[in-house]
């Protein structure tokens, strides 16, 4: 397998001097899903956004398919990378079909091609085109909006997909449905995915590798099995922070009822 994305000695500091990424080196294999975990402010989103150059690093380099993103044509680079965020960022003045086909529209593809592709993608993310193609974002539920956001990210057939807490704002049941749909879809499409998440379960369910960031530093890059059994104190703390409810629902000794 070849490397789809490679971060080389990547650092980023804000103009005020706050270090958000500290010398990160990391390679992502083609066709795999990598979850990026870490506290808020640990640099997860910043790392993700260096790939499509929404953030320009202070030093170091990012390579997509062995080519530095800094020498690439910015528009072509961004059109070749799918991007999904928590707020979906759907364009409220376009219907679903036009939202999905917007990248193709930006590439001046003919209308019938755009519409055909939109309908195929809507089906792929579990939305019936006949029902949803002409709806507007405000007429959709949160889960439906996320499906449209995912379909839009896939429109230009990108090899690389960046997802920033895509399901973070959804209720647990909808989130589980979306995770099932995404796992099924990624299994078929073989995209290279970088997934920023706060949800350890989601990372374990979807990812081939789990990366843990802490204060801008790369702390771990492990398979889900290695992650769960790791003896690293920070990783253990992360795992303990989940499933806290289980400890509270272990049956307590209750006094036996007295016979009447």
């Amino acid at each position, binding site marked *: 397998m070849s490397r789809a994305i490679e971060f080389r000695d990547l650092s980023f500091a804000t103009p005020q001097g706050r270090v958000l990424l500290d010398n990160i080196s990391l390679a992502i294999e083609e066709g795999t899903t990598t979850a990026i975990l870490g506290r808020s402010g640990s640099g997860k989103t910043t790392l993700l956004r260096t790939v499509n150059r929404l953030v320009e690093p202070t030093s170091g380099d990012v390579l997509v398919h062995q080519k530095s993103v800094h020498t690439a044509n910015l528009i072509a680079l961004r059109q070749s*990378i799918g991007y999904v965020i928590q707020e979906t960022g759907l364009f409220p003045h376009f219907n679903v079909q036009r939202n999905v086909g917007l990248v193709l529209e*930006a590439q001046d593809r003919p209308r019938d091609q755009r519409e055909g592709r939109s309908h195929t993608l809507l089906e792929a993310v579990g939305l019936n085109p006949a029902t949803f193609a002409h709806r507007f974002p405000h007429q959709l539920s949160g889960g439906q909006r996320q499906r449209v956001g995912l379909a839009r990210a896939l429109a230009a057939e990108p090899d690389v997909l960046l997802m920033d807490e895509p399901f973070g704002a959804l209720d647990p049941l909808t989130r589980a449905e979306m995770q099932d749909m995404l796992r099924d879809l990624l299994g078929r499409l073989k995209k290279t995915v970088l997934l920023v998440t706060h949800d350890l379960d989601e990372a374990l369910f979807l990812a081939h590798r789990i990366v843990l960031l802490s204060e801008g530093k790369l702390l771990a890059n492990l398979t889900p099995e290695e992650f769960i059994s790791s003896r690293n104190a920070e990783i253990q703390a992360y795992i303990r922070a989940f499933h806290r409810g289980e400890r509270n629902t272990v049956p307590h000794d209750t006094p036996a009822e007295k016979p009447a």
Partner: protein
Amino acid sequence: MSARFFTEYGDQIATLTLEHLWLSGAAMLFATAIAVPAGIWLTRSPRWAKPVIGVANVLQTIPSLAMFGFLLPLPWLGERAARIAIVALTAYALLPILRNTYAGIRGIDGSIIEVARALGLTDSQRLFKVELPLATPFILAGLRTATVTCIGIATIAAAVGAGGLGELIFRGVASVDNRLVLAGAIPAALLALAADAALGWLEHWFTVPAQ
């Protein structure tokens, strides 16, 4: 007002109404052509926003009669009263359009702009497909305020001989004839109300429901 009044002044009222419309309309066209692109430019160079909007603000505080007076001695401009009127009205119309274009684009949800960039839209695609359509209701609201102001101030243009409905008002005041004052004031007010309603309807039509 009697029927005789209308037979006597009807034609004049019609001509002056058209003149009034022409003065305000021309000024609005110039102001829109200047202020919308300027507002867009300010969203690209926000450090200029404060000084530029400040200048437009100062223009608006100049009393209208004084503004017409300032422009009177200028070469070319001072030769024709209509030119003076249109330049002065344009200056008054700039601020609301400029401010609303700037605020309308800057106020768009950040995640929408971020996604537009991330999808690989070029700057002009982002402007014409995303930013301007979403800012349209705000820009129209600015045009609406500017139009109503323009139609009102245009009545004062008669003071420098530019014509318009103000002429009837000034003549009515000079000859203490309230009928003439009303013959100028009522059509001017109706013009302002009609423009307000039409632009208000457009603004509503372009408003996108929130998610």
